[in-house]
């Protein structure tokens, strides 16, 4: 069984070539970028046991950390599971060994974006981009604009249409954006952070 | 005091005396050896049973005898082989450090550290850091210049 998986996956050869070169391995890259030691995870699975999204993930939280430990970058980065994290922090709160799985997944998503990874589900990525665009252009999130932009990006044009009139009626959607005075300040922060992360 | 040129500084080889306890730091230094951790060759260890035995006079005498820096090191709190020698030493050195500093001995020339028997790596760091720091400060020529003053 083990043998089957080993021969079945092409990246294994390249990945195992990394073993023994801790300086340039994926796990050391992750450690460098995120500031967490992946070896700290002793694979008890408590994170996966408590994860509200585990039933929808193809890779469980502890498995994602395991793949980091094994330097299986490709296998991990091709999978969408990391994008299903709700950042509810249950894993981190309960981790017996003081690891921070939630932060690790945050960092992995960031690494995936930087590498222009394709693993993010379109809708989730669309949502994040739309959300950040809102902040960038107004300093705050303008919800109607967010929903509109998100729908354009995600292609989920007809979801939730039924709720829109209800929201509008209850005064829950505003049609015009408010832009803060310090929006330039915010944009500068955006640019600086993007530039810093690129380095 | 004579201004030192950069070549002076580079050719200057600090001489550093280390007063260490037998049980933790001396053994930690042994471990650094068995682990072949390379470190600066400037430190000379003098072994005492415990930091509790280390008298501030030792530090004064080492400087008098031409040391450019001094390391004092022993067991971490709660790990003292003799249960409390290091706690007494800690108070003693806290006062000595202030008094010596007040009289003009740069506290940067004296390193106090806790290095356990398992911390060979930490010992190497203490040695290298202290050597680098003293190298930066230059020779402790003040004592030698005292002769000229009289």
């Amino acid at each position: 069984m083990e043998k089957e998986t080993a021969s079945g996956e092409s990246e294994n050869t390249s990945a195992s070539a990394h073993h023994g070169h801790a300086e340039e391995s994926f796990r050391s890259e992750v450690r460098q970028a995120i500031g967490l030691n992946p070896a700290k995870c002793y694979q008890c699975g408590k994170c996966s046991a408590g994860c509200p999204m585990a039933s929808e993930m193809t890779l469980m939280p502890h498995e994602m950390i395991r793949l980091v430990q094994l330097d299986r970058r490709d296998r991990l980065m091709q999978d969408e599971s990391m994008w299903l994290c709700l950042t509810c922090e249950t894993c981190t709160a309960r981790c017996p060994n003081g690891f921070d799985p939630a932060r690790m997944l945050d960092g992995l998503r960031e690494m995936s974006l930087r590498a222009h990874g394709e693993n993010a589900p379109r809708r989730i990525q669309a949502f994040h981009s739309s959300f950040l665009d809102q902040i960038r252009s107004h300093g705050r999130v303008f919800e109607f604009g967010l929903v509109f932009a998100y729908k354009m990006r995600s292609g989920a044009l007809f979801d939730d249409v039924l709720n829109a009139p209800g929201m509008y009626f209850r005064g829950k959607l505003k049609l015009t954006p408010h832009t803060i005075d310090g929006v330039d300040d915010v944009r500068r922060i955006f640019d600086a952070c993007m530039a810093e992360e690129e380095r | 005091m004579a201004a030192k040129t950069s070549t002076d500084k580079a050719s200057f080889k600090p001489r550093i005396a280390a007063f260490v306890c037998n049980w933790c730091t001396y053994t930690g230094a042994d471990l650094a050896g068995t682990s072949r951790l390379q470190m600066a060759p400037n430190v000379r260890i003098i072994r005492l049973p415990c930091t509790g035995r280390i008298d501030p006079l030792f530090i004064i005498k080492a400087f008098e005898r031409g040391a450019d820096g001094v390391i004092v090191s022993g067991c971490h709190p709660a790990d003292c082989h003799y249960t409390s020698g290091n706690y007494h030493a800690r108070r003693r050195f806290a006062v000595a450090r202030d008094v010596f500093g007040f009289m003009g001995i740069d506290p940067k020339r004296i390193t106090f550290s806790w290095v356990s028997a398992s911390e060979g790596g930490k010992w190497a760091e203490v040695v290298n850091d202290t050597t680098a720091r003293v190298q930066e400060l230059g020779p402790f020529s003040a004592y030698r210049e005292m002769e000229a003053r009289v």
Partner: protein
Amino acid sequence: MSRIGVFVCHCGENIGRTVDCAAVAQACGELPGVVHSIDYKYMCSDPGQALVKQAVAEHKLDGVVVAACSPHMHEKTFRKTVANAGINRFLCEMANVREHCSWIHEDREEATQKAIDLTRFIVEKIKHNVPLEPIKIPVTRRALVIGGGIAGIQAALDIADGGCEVVLVEKEPSIGGHMSQLSETFPTLDCSQCILTPRMVEVYQHPRIKLMAYAEVDKVEGYIGNFTVTVRQKARGVNASLCNGCGECQKVCPNKKIASEFDAGLGKRPAIYVPFPQAVPNIPVIDRANCALYKGRARNAKKDACKKCEEVCGRKAIDFDQQDTFLTEKVGAIVVATGYQLYNIKKEQDKEAISGYGEYGYGTIPDVIDGLQFERLASASGPTGGKILRPSDGKEPKTVVFLQCIGSRDPAKGIDYCSKICCMYIAKHTMLYHHKVHGGQAIVFFMDIRAGGKGYDEFTRRAIEENDALYVRGRVSKMYRDGDVIKVLGFDTLSGEPMHIDADMVVLATAMRPQPGIESLAQKLSVSYDRFGFINEAHPKLRPVETNTAGVYVAGACQAPRDIPDAVAMASATASKILGLFSASELEREPLVAQVDQGTCAGCFHCVRVCPYGAVEHFEVKDRKGNLIKTVAQVNKGVCQGCGTCQANCPSKSVELQGFTDQQIFAAINAF
């Protein structure tokens, strides 16, 4: 001292590769006082040692400096060599040019210079060495054992059988410890009480064992071979010499609703009680916190509320006015065998660093029990007569979930270590459960199965293969009560499947922790303990049952989590150490102790304040007529361990630590 020999060792290539040993020997040969200086390939080899011996004789050496490895490695060797050559072994010292020089430097010139310096320091130091003779101390051939669990029982029996007297102090009313609570024992599944009770009786009847149950160590003074221990005998409220253990008092006691400690809270006992029928000694105690008479007296009630036990006692053994008494015992060695308690998952903890399990309800969910409670359920002498019935409603649980590593291997809760015995006893529990509850399913959540030990792995495999225990690899994230069941949210990391189980009962394998109060006992004994409170052994490998205070030994779970075979082995080891110690009427100690110059001592007694061992005493100097001249410090050589803290604190330098005198250190620094 003026005739010093220097012996520079190459240690094969180890030193010679980076240090020019010949140059070191030559440089040292030029030092004043050095009459002989050579280098050799392997100084510690037989020919090397012969060279030293030969040189001592030939050159009439009165000091030998060996520049080689760490003194921790070969100081003993070379001191023995010079002793064989006829000079005092304290006239030999080592310069560490291997660990502290050749192994950590590459530059040959620098390393050689450093080796010369290090050797020169020692040459200068040794000029002030003096011959020292070992210290002889008389020995009281009698031992104190603290704790009457299986470790304490074993140690006491072994020492007593070896011909020496033993005082066994147990804080509970009976000896037996946690082992007496167990149902069966792994990996043989023999009945715990069946193997323990005979040993308890043996202790009771042994002519050389003085058993003090319901007693605690109050004070310890003295030193190896010569301890004086004060023991507090707690008041039982029952005159032990009159009581015949008939048990009538327990029957008439009106308050029978007190949670039984022996049954881990699952059973009840009266206010006057023996913990269990096989108790040794079989003498009841009155639980004053729960007895109506004492409660009334505490409220200053005019009349005693109840004296039923006194009325029924035919031997007139009940003594309500009995007070704690203090007894002094002289012993030569002490065994600490205070055992363990179990971690609990409650919100309130006795240590700040330790926290409970909120995700498992902080101990508020009914039918979540710990390992000792399961032992009582499974025990024929237990509250259910050996039937596995859950505490809340007495139903037989059809699904029991066992969780391993609760509070152990869990740094987030404050305990990092592996509790060691849980893997085994949980496997045993699943077997007992399988035998007793037909159709029941045991599910074990584990991280690793640690079954190192004779017959241990076979045992856990048997639980899995033949007793149908389902082992699930993973920790449980959350547990809560839902109606009649306990929802257990776990995950099997082997299959990647969530494991959401409706359990009828949950057993937590909670971590072993040292007994409460261990720190204060350790302080009385001057032994050190780790941050969890476990007693530190003198060396983790080579001196596992000694402590850093000479004459104090450690056995069983107060040193680290231990199972019964470990605890017994340690106990026998302490006994063997102690019998060895007691084999001579005097013992010898390294003479590296402090010595006071009474002529210059001003009697400020700073030394008394700093001495970690209480080794410095007041001494009255008198003239011939007996008039007091002055009071000065004096070091008790038996107690002094040679740390030298007194010397550093002595303003007039009137106390000297032998082997590290001011003269010696001064000379070494002066050579800088």
